[in-house]
């Protein structure tokens, strides 16, 4: 999977693409944390438009983003979630914990 970061006015946009599974999860998590630590955003947007497959590793990634932003007193928005990834998030009830649009 790949992460493309764009930062502006303390908003950080991370565009995720490819397959999110356990194989790439550790690197993806580190990359996300480095991007958040560098930008110290008020708002983090995870754009999942380019995600072609996601398993529960994606849930861990989103929850980690949420924790990280909580420490910064900021918010997380997950957007453009493809159908398959949406079903994974729904099965886990993640919509109750994180804003998904």
């Amino acid at each position: 999977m790949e992460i493309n970061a764009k930062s502006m006015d303390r908003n950080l946009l991370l565009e995720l693409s490819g397959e999110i599974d356990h194989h790439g999860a550790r690197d993806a998590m580190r990359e996300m944390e480095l991007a958040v630590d560098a930008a110290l955003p008020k708002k983090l947007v995870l754009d999942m438009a380019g995600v072609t497959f996601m398993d529960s590793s994606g849930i861990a990634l989103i929850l980690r983003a949420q924790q990280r932003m909580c420490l910064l007193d900021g918010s997380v928005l997950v957007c453009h979630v493809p159908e398959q990834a949406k079903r994974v998030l729904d099965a886990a009830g993640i919509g109750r914990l994180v804003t998904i649009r």
Partner: protein
Amino acid sequence: MKSKAMNEVALEFPSRSSNEGFARSAVACFAAQMDPTLNELEDIKTAVSEAVTNAIVHAYPDSIGKVLVKARVCPGNVLEITVKDHGKGIPDIDKAREPMFTTGGEERSGMGFTIMESFMDKLVVRSVPGKGTSVTMKKKLAPRMKAGK
């Protein structure tokens, strides 16, 4: 009793995480003969990914062992998938199946079994500590009208 398979395939590979993508794609390719919908195919891929990841992360935490994946086409348009390992086993299966429970690292969510349960129709987990674990999942695929019939 085991129903007779109309077709089956078995894959065996070392528990390297780079094989996760291969395993789910291979099972999806095999399932394609059942004429699944795109949603069904994605459900199958997701469930296989979870089961294989469990074997890789939990069965062999400090070593590389063998993971066996079997897929069978059973009567009634049912796909049966078994993911088996000879790893360390699960001491408490009920606990392991609870949502958010994980003994994995911070990159694990503890939602693997919950997703397998919700994406497949039936999930049976057997495990003997020190001997290994087998996860069998079944999914009945919706019958579809064949073109021209």
